[in-house]
């Protein structure tokens, strides 16, 4: 009996030692990969940060309105934010690669999914950035045009243009990420429809006089006194 227990214990210890010996090289490989990954990710981060500083990415981000969003969320500047993001994605990629070396069943599929998801994430971020840039550009263009045309409440018009573009861009981003596609589609439809209906009601009923003045100004010959300040600039 005693010998049997000792034999089983010895066998278990042998199995454990064998298993440990089997996994140890893989663990070391994983740790090496994680370390090398950290070094590479750090170098990539430093290089990217330098490139972004040289091309004045913060200024571009400010123009896009992304900097203001980051400020409000108490996040670092766009250059730092993007550098850190790339650092973590790169390092995480290496860690995932290391984990896959361990050969743990079930994790392999998740890791493969993670790597397949990365391109979508990059594309979504690009769409978001350029979308914000477009929203900023067109809302500013609308604001300037409205101010120069002496349209009442130009900032509301500008905000409406900005909101419409951002809602549209967000719906594309969520679709790209594959997050709640149906929900986003319905939400976008409702939000966009509500916005248009709201504008139609506001302009048609709430702003009836405004609409009348606008249409008169556009299509009816203006009175003489309204032209009094129209001096020839050249």
């Amino acid at each position, binding site marked *: 009996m005693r010998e049997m227990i000792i034999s089983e214990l010895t066998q278990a210890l042998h199995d454990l030692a064998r298993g440990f010996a089997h996994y140890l090289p893989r663990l070391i490989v994983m740790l090496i990969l994680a370390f090398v990954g950290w070094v590479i990710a750090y170098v990539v981060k430093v290089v990217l940060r330098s490139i972004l500083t040289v091309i004045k990415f913060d*200024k571009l981000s400010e*123009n896009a309105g992304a900097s203001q969003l980051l400020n409000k969320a108490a996040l670092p500047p766009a250059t730092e934010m993007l550098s850190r993001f790339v650092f973590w994605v790169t390092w995480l990629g290496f860690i995932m690669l290391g984990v896959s070396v361990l050969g743990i069943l079930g994790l392999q599929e998740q890791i493969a999914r993670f790597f397949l998801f990365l391109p979508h994430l990059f594309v979504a971020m690009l769409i978001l950035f350029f979308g914000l840039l477009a929203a900023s*550009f067109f809302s*500013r*263009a609308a*604001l*300037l*045009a*409205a*101010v*120069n*045309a*002496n349209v009442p409440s*130009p*900032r509301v018009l500008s905000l409406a243009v900005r909101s419409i573009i951002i809602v549209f861009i967000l719906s594309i981003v969520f679709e790209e990420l594959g997050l709640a596609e149906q929900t986003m589609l319905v939400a976008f439809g409702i939000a966009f429809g509500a916005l248009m209906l709201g504008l139609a009601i506001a302009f048609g009923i709430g702003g009836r006089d405004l609409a009348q003045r606008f249409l008169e100004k556009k299509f009816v010959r203006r009175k003489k*006194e*309204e032209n*009094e*300040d*129209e*001096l*020839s*600039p*050249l």
Partner: protein
Amino acid sequence: MEDETFLTDDFLRQLINVGEVDILVGLPTRNNAKTIGSIVHTIQSGILGGFPRERAVIINVDGGSRDGTPELVTGISIDDVRPASNLHALRTLHSISTNYAGSPESGVAFRTILAAAELLRAKACIVMSPESVNSESDWLSKLLRPIYRDGFDLVTPTYRRHKFDGLLMTNLLYPMIRALYGVRIREAFTPEFGFSNRLGSQFLGQNGWADGTGGSGVELRFTLAAITGGYRVCQSFLGKKDHVERRAADLVPTLRQTVGVLFSALESDFSVWSKVVGSQPVPTTGSDQELLLDPMRVNRKRLRQMFSTGVAELQSVFQSILSPPTLEGLQRIAALGEEEFHYSAELWVRTVYEFAASYQKSVISRDHIIQAIAPLFRGRVCTFLGENRNASANDVETNIEGLCLEFERLKPYLLQMWKSRE
């Protein structure tokens, strides 16, 4: 001669038939049937009266008129002019026409005139505006003679105008060009001017036509090219310039054609204007500028309101363009009542210079920078109108001179900003 390739075969054939000429009159048109008849008669009279022995051609470059303008130009016979004026040309006066696709602002018309002048080896050229209905036949002599006889390369006009006419010219273009380029040209952007073949050929070869920048406001670019190229420039007084009806909505396109072109030129001409100190008058035939003082009703209240609205609504845009002290100055005067409102010359000059530096740096879209000037210009106009409401011609001239000197005094401020933003 690569610039002839954009000319149509038909137009080239017409040019070959004309042969070499001494005088070339360029007439860019687009739906000007109502006025073109009298303009062509004026040109013909001017040539018969001033240059009867010279070989001359009228070249009409039309931007797709639908009212038969080109047919009118080529159909008007010089015989219609002879009996009335009792004048006779000793040479044939040719009149040819071509058309182009694109907008009138594209600069294609001017480029066509330059190319034709080069091909025909014209000694002196003139561009006439189809809208100058009050033009006189002696305008041709006044614009051509300094080139043909006296060896000048560019003749710009001066006019007799209302004191409140051409406010962009008097409040921005003239003083700024004078301060930066050191040359006192009153009308740097004008629809009628004379030029030598030498200057025309040089500009035709150097201007960046293909990149799209050679188009809008090409006349101003031409004047600046003459200044920076060291060509001989003079002015000639033409007479009364009729007020051209413009809508308030025309201000932004006008700013693009003038201020946008000037700001853009500052970049390439930096090596020239950064060394210029002070300014010099240019030789002028006749009066430098004559002002009419007829009473004119102007709605200053609306101008001030548009300025104040602009300053309030465009704060986020101005934050990117202007320095904090300048923006604070604008916000302070925007809050003033109609009587106290005063947009000082110094603040205006600082504003313009900061816009120019921001344009160079492209802090936001360059077109947006130009659009953002419009409400501020209205504010400056409001002050100018108030200051000169009851002013005599001399007083107005003194005020304009004061503004010019302010532009010259603050030029180091622009240079400092230009360099600090590099």
